[in-house]
């Protein structure tokens, strides 16, 4: 395989990674997944850079990649801290929860509402409580929402 063909293959994989990341970034609503998709875009870029570096027989591409990875790690740190803070405030990882700051008078985007199932007033058997009710970890309940 010639160098050019190899380069093209690498670049193709890189661009696919980039495109996948981009698509994921656009279509996913989970904050963490969105961030991971952005990371995937960066990986695509890194792969391209390395491919070009190999092609040109030059190490500055690789050098840039190292810095990209480093910076991405920093960003991951920030991102996770941020996501944690967001999650604490809204109790959810959905990005659509964060549309309160917008142009005045603009209606918020609301998901298709799932109609609440008609609750029939079922008559539950009333039993005499037996034994001890298990202790509920409130924290655990909270987490399960996430």
């Amino acid at each position, binding site marked *: 395989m010639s160098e050019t063909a190899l380069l093209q293959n690498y670049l193709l994989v890189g661009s696919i990674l980039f495109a996948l990341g*981009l698509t994921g*970034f*656009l*279509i996913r*609503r989970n904050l963490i997944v969105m961030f991971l998709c952005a990371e995937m875009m960066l990986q695509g870029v890194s792969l391209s850079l390395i491919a070009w570096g190999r092609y040109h027989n030059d190490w500055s591409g690789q050098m840039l990649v190292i810095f990209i990875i480093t910076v991405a790690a920093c960003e991951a740190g920030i991102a996770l801290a941020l996501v944690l803070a967001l999650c604490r405030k809204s109790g959810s990882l959905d*990005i*659509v929860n*964060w*549309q*309160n*700051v*917008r*142009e005045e*008078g*603009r209606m*918020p*985007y609301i998901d298709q509402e799932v109609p609440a199932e008609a609750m029939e007033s079922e008559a539950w058997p009333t039993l005499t409580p037996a034994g001890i009710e298990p202790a509920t970890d409130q924290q655990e309940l909270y987490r399960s929402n996430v």
Partner: protein
Amino acid sequence: MSDNLIILIPFFPLLAAILIAILGPKLLKENSHYVTVLAFAASFVCSLMLFFSVQGQVVEEGTSFESVTTLWTWAAVDNAMIDADGHSVPFLIDVTLRSDALTSIMLCMVTFIATLVAIFGAGYMHGDRGYWRFFAYVSLFVFSMTMLVSVSNFLLLFVFWEAVGLCSYLLIGFWYHKPEASAAGKKAFLVNRVGDFGFALAIFLIWINYGTLNFHDYVVDGQVIIPGVFGQMRLGGALPYVQGGMATAICLLLMLGACGKSAQFPLHVWLPDAMEGPTPVSALIHAATMVTAGVYMVTRCTPLFHASPDAQVTVACIGGFTALLAGLIALTQHDLKRVLAYSTVSQLGYMFLALGTGSLAGIVAGMFHLFTHAFFKALLFLGSGSVMHAMGNVIDMRRFGGLRHLMPWTFRTFLVGCLALAGIFPFAGFWSKDAILASVHDRAYPGAHSHDSQDSEHDADHDADQDADDHATHSVALLSADHAGSNQADSYTNIYVWLYRSACFTAFLTAFYTFRAFFLTFYGPQVIPDESGHHAHESPPMMWIPLAILAIFAFLIGFVSELDHKFAHLLTSTPSLAFAGMHDTMQPGGFHMDIAISSSIIAVLGIALAAFLYLGHQREVEAISKLKLVAPLRALSLNKFYLDEIYTWAVVKPLEFLGIIYFWLDRWLVDGLVNLIGKVPVALGSGFRYLQTGLLPFYSLSMVVAMLILLFLGQVLWGGG
């Protein structure tokens, strides 16, 4: 010396105005009048010193004297105009003050009256909420007025012409909460606009025709660079004055300006309404000083008027007609101040009549009347102010009467004023009115008087010839123009005959209405309106002492000035009056015994008739006014010949109608368009706002789509091309 004086005279009032404007509301308050009175007194002292200095120099230097002081250059444009000869003319406006006889006389008169009025005003305005504002305005007015009479340039004259108009407006509307007062202020301002418009046009014409607006020659190193309109070059005959139609146009436009400011027909309607202002203001501005600015201006422009006999006869006619008209209106007015206001209009008409004779005697007589009139009319107005003060601001003569015992000082001084106005020997009005009648008479019947003035005329002719010899440049054209002018003027003699008759009749009217007002106010049973309350007593000394001073002057000033023809001699040394062309006309100084006697008889007759009708019961008046013949005439006079109504229907209503149309056009068409244009960005904005959903996925999608479009276009248009 006189340089400093001429600067100090307007400086003091300006300083006072600024000080009061800054410190008045918080610091000076009820003490504001001290600043004003002090400043005016200082100005008056300076004016007197200037006057004597000028008088001394006139004696030294002979016939014509002026001295100019240039403060700074206000505007300077090179090559502002190419004149008829192809020379480029610079437009140069220096702030230049001049001192000559005319200016110094005016300055003395203005500052003297202003000082007394300020003292009176301190008493009259006592307790008013706008006390400091009053004195600030009055100070500003006196500054403007002193500047008006001392500037040496048409443009600056116009500036201060407007400035006194502004002060007048401010002071007429002083009690602006009162609708009549603010309406009167507006009326004065708008009517004056008409006149000012004419004045401005006249200034444009003067600039085009003379290439300068300066009165004096612009001299650098003894070399005349720009000959002034009334500079020695032109007055000496080295340069001609514009003749013919253009001269008439300039003069008529100037006269239009003078009509506005000096309340001459047809622009006199504002002055009676201006009586809404505080009475000291009426005395100072609307009787003694500002309204005479037109007379001053026409006197200053004598050489221009001299070039146009048509304009002179127009001035005379306007003056004579206004005098008669205002006299007739004054006959029936009930309002004391209105009577005096119409009397002022009438007397100003007299002055213009005298100026319109075009003779030196007439002009001096007009200025002389201006001078004496200032004293006794200020006196009368302040007297009426004193009455008004005592009567609780009631000024309708039907509602009070018989005040002579209640207000002895006001009564006495008012009597002096009335006698002066009626023209009774030896009061001031007698001398000046006689001089006017004499000059008009001489103009109407040339050669009728062949006594003492004949010699002096010969002398004058002789002088003129000598001057002509001295000035090698004395042009033939000027002589022939003079000659032609005098020939043409002769055809107007008939008009002057009628003017003389009407002036005599007006003198009768003057005496009659003056004493009608006097008798109604001070004689008869004592009637006091309810409004007066505890005020119904003699005014405090602060108010009657200025009255007394003015009364002394109203008594003496005519006699003293006429003594040895001092006034005439001094005044004729003014450059505008002391020029070759003027020497050909009749010299002042003739005292005509026959005219004096006949006018005195007329005046006494007027007083007698007034006494007959208005002393005691007024049965005769009622009887007369019920006559079928008289009633409509009386209504005509009472309603001021319906002039206000005519103006309302002929001018105001059509303009209002146009105004309404334009308002609607502006409101709906123009504003509509502008608002529509203004709405476009806002509408655009609402569109863009729609994109700000607050949704992060939407934002990122937008960015990515934009990115993809850019990449695609980049490939096609940049890379592929």
